[in-house]
């Protein structure tokens, strides 16, 4: 990562110097300005603005958790918490679905772990299930967080999510779109929910990992007493 990290606001001028304008920067009359609220970062010759808020913007390759909201004869319509609904075509699933038989495999209200296959210039999103690990999620519990908090919940190289999984003995999938799926006993789900809310609330205070560990072990002891 880069040393210089300052909050920038829309309309603020950016001195590019040697660098090129990257994400979140627009150029007008030869000068560069910030497009949205975020932090400035300089990486491999580009100045980028990393957003601090905002809705999930689908990107190719993202793993997302979505809910089926509509069924057509050869595709499903999935709500992935983005500005757009995303279709999933039967050819992009591991099943052999006959025309019109879509509802036999996935129904309205079902949850899936899918991958963003493509996003085109008019922001049409296509999903796929044709990869190991991608599937329909049965049972479990859904938690929604802001998509900008997802990196904190995953932690550095997945450290935070590993702690959550190990200390609660639960199965967790985190979608890049801010939707989290948890499966386990009622107690462990409650613990995970509590820990995630703690991460969301106190993400900016130092020693987050330790506090999450403390939170999880404390509730463990309390449960034992009961």
């Amino acid at each position, binding site marked *: 990562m880069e040393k210089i990290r300052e*909050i920038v606001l829309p*309309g603020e001028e950016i001195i590019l110097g040697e660098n090129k304008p990257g994400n979140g920067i627009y150029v*007008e009359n030869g000068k560069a300005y910030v497009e*949205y609220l975020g*932090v400035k970062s300089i990486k491999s010759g580009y100045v980028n603005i990393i957003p601090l808020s905002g809705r999930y913007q689908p990107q190719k390759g993202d793993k997302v958790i979505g809910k089926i909201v509509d069924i057509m004869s050869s595709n499903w319509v999935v709500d992935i918490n983005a500005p757009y609904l995303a279709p999933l075509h039967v050819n992009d699933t591991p099943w052999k679905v006959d025309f019109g038989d879509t509802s036999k495999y996935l129904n309205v209200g079902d949850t899936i772990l899918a991958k963003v296959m493509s996003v085109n210039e008019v922001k049409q999103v296509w999903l796929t299930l044709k990869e190991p690990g991608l599937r329909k999620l049965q049972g479990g519990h859904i938690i929604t967080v802001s998509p900008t908090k997802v990196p904190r919940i995953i932690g550095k190289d997945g450290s935070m999510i590993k702690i959550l999984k190990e200390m609660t003995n639960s199965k967790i999938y985190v979608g890049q779109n801010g939707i989290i799926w948890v499966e386990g006993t009622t107690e462990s789900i409650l613990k995970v929910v509590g820990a995630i809310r703690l991460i969301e609330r106190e993400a900016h205070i130092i020693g987050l990992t330790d506090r999450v560990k403390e939170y999880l072990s404390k509730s463990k002891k309390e449960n034992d007493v009961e």
Partner: protein
Amino acid sequence: MSGMKTDIKLIDENGKRIDGRTFDQIRPIKIEAGILERADGSAYIEWGGNKIIAAVYGPREVYPKHMQDPSKAVLRARYNMAAFSVDERKKPGPDRRSIELSMVISNALSSVVFLEQFPRTAIDVFIEVLQADAGTRIAGLTAASVALADAGIPMKDLIVGCAAGKVENTIVLDLNKEEDNFGQADLPVAIIPRTKEIVLFQMDGDMIEEEINRAMDMAINASLQIYELQKDALKRKYFNIVQEDELQ
């Protein structure tokens, strides 16, 4: 409502206005960003006696579907006054005045947001006036632009505005309720602070060209002061998050 007859002396012998301000002073302003949990972005503004909440949702799917534009997003602002926001209870619901203000605010905000980045979507802005004390359209617009930035929506710049007017033949800045009701003219102006382009300009009452120019200059100068408050409100909210990043 300008030009109603009154016995109140709006400006005294020393040039002080009824709330003790001089002719070129604005009312105290307090802005806070991100006050609503469920909205994508929000802001609260206290501007003199005005208390206004602005909330932003989106970009999201457009309903009704026929409003959607395949080339860009539609920005829909809704200005609404609470029934209890004024002395005499206001009949709830949109009326002629609030429909027009919703339109001018939508147009002003549309001029800075990069709508082409979100084809087929809607960005909804809700402005709720909880307490009104003259100059609500500008205060609402100022709060709405902070809420848009808080929602992470790409835009050219924030929008900021201020009103000026004419009271007892003097050009004054940022009219309060009495001055608005019994003064001679009211001139709300909103600008893009970086380029000083005008995005909203209306006038109620009569002024000559010279007076309009003076009032406009005063309003633009005051807007630039308020712009600093907007930036401060946003930076205050996000300061903690960035601090933590530095430590990692």
